């Protein structure tokens, strides 16, 4: 009889200090059974890895004793391309690193380039449309996070509901830029073109409907007893750990840190919006378990959707007719200089470091991708959990592989 491949044999009696602590807090001793750890390869093709990430797991039965993420299965050389093509030509590539929130990526890149072009004036209507698009895209992105997290936990149906509403947002985007996923709509200097007639009203309609649907999703999945049992007290990231790993976005806020770039280092009109009370910053409170567990992170994302809705509504009130794009030449030449601009993406701080020597092509284009940074925490988070928990933890980090590998 063939036996499954095993790691090297270990002495049959383990020292007592090798006792493992189970998630429930019970201590378990393996005294006289000869066991060996099993190395399992999760990915690159595995339903839980949200794409093509690979995690090498070392397991003792169901217990994960070690985890090592391997990246690079979707490395697409975005930074090299950023240094090889013209400023505006690079914009479509930004769509493709975090393909769930392409508008926000466009925005981050545009802001970084605009930081190097101080003469460029961005009209207020353009800024407002940018904010509407960015926030709608945040909702769409969190919807995917919510749906696929349901899949990870084993609930299939929320995914379909989430995609139903996402389809609506995509249809809205399609009306303004013609693309469903990769928009390239927010350009250097503003947005590509004005909104079609009636579009703003459609956005308002969406806001009204989505509010009800959101409550439905919340009751269906987030408040579900099994879901709470699966995610509360699992994968707890403490505040210190979050700082140490440089986490940003919902991952950081889930750990109870009250920090949001939109409020604390405002860009566009977010400062004004916050002063007007258009949005609040949700943080993890440990309502169902410990502060910083998977449930908190999911909850932060859920509440953020509603806050984004408030922002969209505020923008719809503020928006006035006018031009949407500043005076941008056809071939952009950026004055020499360097700038780092980080904005609040759905997954955390998306930073662009742009360095120009005054030519038509960037000298350095650095993408500081939130997923890449947030993923590093897995290595510390997964040991000591059960196999099913490790799936829940990967899901709660809400990574997009296009962004981790760029």
């Amino acid at each position: 009889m063939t036996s499954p491949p095993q790691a090297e044999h270990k002495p049959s009696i383990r020292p007592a200090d090798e006792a493992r602590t189970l998630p429930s807090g019970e201590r378990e001793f393996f005294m006289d059974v000869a066991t060996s750890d099993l190395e399992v390869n999760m990915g690159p093709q595995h339903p839980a890895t949200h794409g093509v990430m690979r995690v090498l797991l070392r397991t003792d039965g169901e217990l994960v004793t070690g985890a090592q993420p391997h990246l690079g299965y979707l490395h697409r050389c975005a930074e090299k391309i950023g240094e090889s093509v013209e400023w505006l030509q690079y914009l479509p590539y930004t769509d493709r690193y975090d393909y769930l929130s392409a508008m926000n990526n466009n925005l981050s890149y545009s802001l970084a380039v605009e930081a190097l072009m101080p003469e460029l004036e961005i009209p207020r209507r353009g800024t407002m449309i940018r904010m509407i698009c960015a926030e709608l895209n945040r909702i769409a992105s969190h919807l995917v996070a919510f749906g696929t997290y349901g899949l990870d936990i084993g609930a299939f149906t929320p995914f379909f509901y989430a995609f139903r509403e996402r389809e609506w947002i995509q249809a809205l985007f399609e009306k303004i830029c013609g693309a469903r996923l990769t928009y390239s709509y927010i350009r250097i200097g503003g947005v590509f073109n004005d909104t079609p007639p009636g579009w703003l009203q459609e956005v308002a309609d969406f806001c009204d409907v989505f509010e009800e649907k959101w409550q439905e999703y919340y009751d269906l999945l987030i408040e579900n007893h099994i879901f709470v049992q699966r995610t509360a007290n699992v994968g707890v990231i403490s505040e210190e750990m979050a700082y140490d790993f440089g986490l940003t976005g919902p991952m950081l806020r889930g750990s109870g840190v009250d920090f949001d770039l939109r409020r604390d280092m405002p860009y566009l009109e977010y400062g004004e919006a916050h002063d007007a009370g258009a949005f609040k910053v949700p943080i993890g409170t440990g309502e169902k378990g410990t502060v910083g567990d998977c449930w908190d992170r999911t909850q932060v994302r859920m509440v953020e959707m509603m806050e984004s809705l408030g922002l969209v509504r505020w923008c719809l009130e503020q928006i006035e007719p006018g031009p949407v794009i500043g005076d941008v030449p056809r071939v952009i030449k950026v004055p020499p200089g360097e700038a780092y601009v980080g904005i609040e993406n759905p997954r955390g701080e998306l930073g662009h470091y742009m360095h120009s020597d005054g030519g038509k092509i960037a000298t350095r284009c650095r993408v500081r991708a939130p997923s890449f940074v947030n993923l590093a925490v897995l290595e510390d988070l997964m040991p000591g959990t059960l196999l099913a928990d490790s799936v829940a933890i990967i899901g709660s980090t809400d990574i997009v592989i296009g962004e981790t590998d760029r």
Partner: protein
Amino acid sequence: MDFQAIADHLSVAQVPGLLSVELPRSPDKETKDKGRSGLPYLCVEPSRIVEFLTFCRDDDALGFEVLVDLTASDPSADDENLWILIQLLSVRHRQRLGIKCLLPKSALSMPSSTKVYRAAQWHERECMEMYGVTFEDHPDPRNMLLPDDWVGYPMRKDYEFPKEYHGISCE
């Protein structure tokens, strides 16, 4: 604190490794939008980076808990230096700090910052494979994004694109 105040504080505290303060080359314009100004940098001696970062993290007035980004830049193929760029963020004080180290291309080696910020680990791995910078005492110096047998450092300006990989044509 704004950048000037941070720089002054660091000079007064005589932090090890601080070389110079570089203000943005693009003219800073007073706008409501803070993100639109080019970021100023501190130049730091590469060999003293660990002490410098430790000070930035532990000093109460600075309180940079988060290393946002660590990357390298190759300004041009002729340039004799490679830049190491570090972005710090203080959640407490809502402030950012940019740090730049100049590494001569002839000796691409500097200490690893992983002991100060765990976040630096993956960024440094990426730098290592992309630019060929060696970070001393790095806990896990494997390739991060590229295959293990990849030849060359792709992000260098003098990089030549491969013709084929494992018998698969690249053209």
